[in-house]
């Protein structure tokens, strides 16, 4: 029982990270119809930037206050991601308007490679730690409920909180700010949005920036848990089944989907894995999503597509 709950919680933690990455996908897809394969690479890129900045700043400035260093580094990383978003929009997407989905997808594949290559070229290709001073020591809860209680990492709790806050902020951003509303309008209908004078290009830069920041946060959390390294961009591929499950255009879908996959993955690994020779994590998410596709192509929360002739 206890171990079950622990696995469950562990799953939720991982799932939450998936959700964060998936969130990036959904934002971009909603706004620009681009299936951004590069989201994973963006996570890696952002995390690398953050990690290295945090490392360089003390050397440059000489002041050794973790908080300041980290915040400067974070700010720097945010800046980097915004510039990146702008570059991507300017150099790639602006030149591929009205292309069909597959072309755009392949373009983002190209971007993936550029990011991975340049990211490592700029920031190095070792394993880097991000230390934002999250407490590492585990805590036991529910000791009364059953003996031994549950072991969880404070760190994970913090991470969960951060993620939650981020999601909340995004929600606010979309509901309250003018830009947010503009974004929603664009997501609903490009032509219409354009006709009422919403500058698509700027909107798209914003969206990519936001997605970049989300990627950064995801990267930071992940990095502080397991360190920043190339494999991060592959882990991010896990977010694909998540969006499929949740529906390409649904933010709640992304979150729920992420949690479902995270949990499903862990549980299956524990309870089914052994019978199949273990390591089924790497495909379980996909097969789950795939199976789901056949039943409900538009995903949990996605809206049905009617193509008119």
């Amino acid at each position, binding site marked *: 029982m206890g171990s079950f709950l622990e696995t469950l919680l562990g799953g939720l933690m991982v799932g939450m990270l998936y959700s964060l990455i998936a969130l990036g996908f959904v934002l971009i897809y909603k706004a620009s119809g681009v299936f951004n394969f590069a989201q994973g690479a963006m996570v890696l890129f952002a995390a690398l930037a953050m990690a290295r900045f945090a490392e360089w700043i003390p050397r440059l400035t000489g002041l050794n206050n973790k908080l300041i260093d980290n915040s400067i580094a974070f700010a720097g990383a945010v800046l980097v991601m915004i510039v990146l978003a702008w570059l991507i929009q300017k150099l790639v997407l602006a030149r591929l308007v009205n292309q069909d989905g*597959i072309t755009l997808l392949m373009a983002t594949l190209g971007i993936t490679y550029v990011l991975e290559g340049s990211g490592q070229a700029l920031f190095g290709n070792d394993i880097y730690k991000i230390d934002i001073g999250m407490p590492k020591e585990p805590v036991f809860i529910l000791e009364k409920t059953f003996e031994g209680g549950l072991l969880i990492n404070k760190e994970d709790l913090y991470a969960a909180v951060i993620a939650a806050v981020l999601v909340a902020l995004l929600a606010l951003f979309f509901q309250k700010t003018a830009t947010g509303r503009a974004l929603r309008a664009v997501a609903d209908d490009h032509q219409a949005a354009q006709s009422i004078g919403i500058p698509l290009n700027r909107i798209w830069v914003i969206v990519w920036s936001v997605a970049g920041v989300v990627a950064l946060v995801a990267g930071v959390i992940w990095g502080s848990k397991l360190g920043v390294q190339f494999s991060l961009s592959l882990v991010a591929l896990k977010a694909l089944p998540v969006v499929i499950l949740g529906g390409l255009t649904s933010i709640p879908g992304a979150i729920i989907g992420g949690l479902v996959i995270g949990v499903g993955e862990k549980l299956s690994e524990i309870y089914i894995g052994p019978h199949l020779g273990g390591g089924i994590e790497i495909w379980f998410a996909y097969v789950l999503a795939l199976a789901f596709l056949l039943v409900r192509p538009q995903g949990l929360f996605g809206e049905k597509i009617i193509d008119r002739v």
Partner: protein
Amino acid sequence: MLYRENGQFKTTYRADQQIFPILQDRIAIALLLVVAFVVVPLVADAYTLRAILIPFLILSLAALGLNILVGYCGQISLGTGAFMAVGAYAAYNFMVRFDGMPLLAAMLLGGLMSTIVGVLFGIPSLRIKGLYLAVATLAAQFFADWAFLRVPFFTNNSSSGSVSVPSLSVFGMEIESPAHKYLFCLAIVCVFALLAKNLVRGHLGREWMAIRDMDVAAEVIGIRPVYAKLTAFAVSSFIVGVAGVLWGFVYLGSWEPAAFSIDRSFQLLFMVIIGGLGSIMGSFFGAAFIVLLPLFLNRVPTLLGIPISVSAASHLEFMIFGSLIVFFLIVEPHGLARLWSTGKEKLRLWPFPH
């Protein structure tokens, strides 16, 4: 400029529909074949054959297979590596489990297996559009990675997890020397290229392209998307599977699942994009390009006296590939093959610009 087409008129449809209707092209291709089959084996050294030409040929074949799916039928696939793996492991199992199994037979059976798996993972494509399909094929990729790593049956319970094949022979001829291997691959590639060309210029090929270009219109003229897409998956993964067999048996000799990882899938997709979507010849261009670029990156800087580390080179490679993909998608979606054919058109119209 080199073309002299006056008097090359066609009096039969057969003549009009041949692959190379222009005499000068037929001559050129004939020369190319002579060089490939006769001259190269005589002059090329072992390294060139082993490290450049053989991988080039095999990857061309795989790219060709992928091109049928992506370029001709418009169905994206990120799982090509998996289908290569299926081919390779299937063939391996046939070889080791049935003794006396001839290489060619094993190869075709490997292709067949890959076909079955391909169609299996293609089925979602009937319900879902491109983006989702990408995920479906990715699933295939990861599933294969896992299966060949974790399921001992596939590796015939080899302890190390890596498999290696016995010496190869076709019709009693040993295929040992690089030259032999090269010729073997070359022969197979030529045959499949021809068959593929025939398919894409036949009505099946037109069905694929119709689905790719305008699926509703295609349905209205009686083309069944199910059939068109599944045949594309089948043919594609068969060829890819065979390529997988060659990759494992001829090029590697012994291999681990990593040999067919997702990177391979991407690499092949890039070949298709850079070489030219929807062009048989493009597959060869793409393969050549992607095989040669790393060599180029490793040599040139040192030659220029600015040696760069291996890792730097690989990062550079990543960036160059990435930007090239974007570049081609933006500037010339039909890749090198289109550049080639425009060049050819210019030659035909010379001295006129158009």
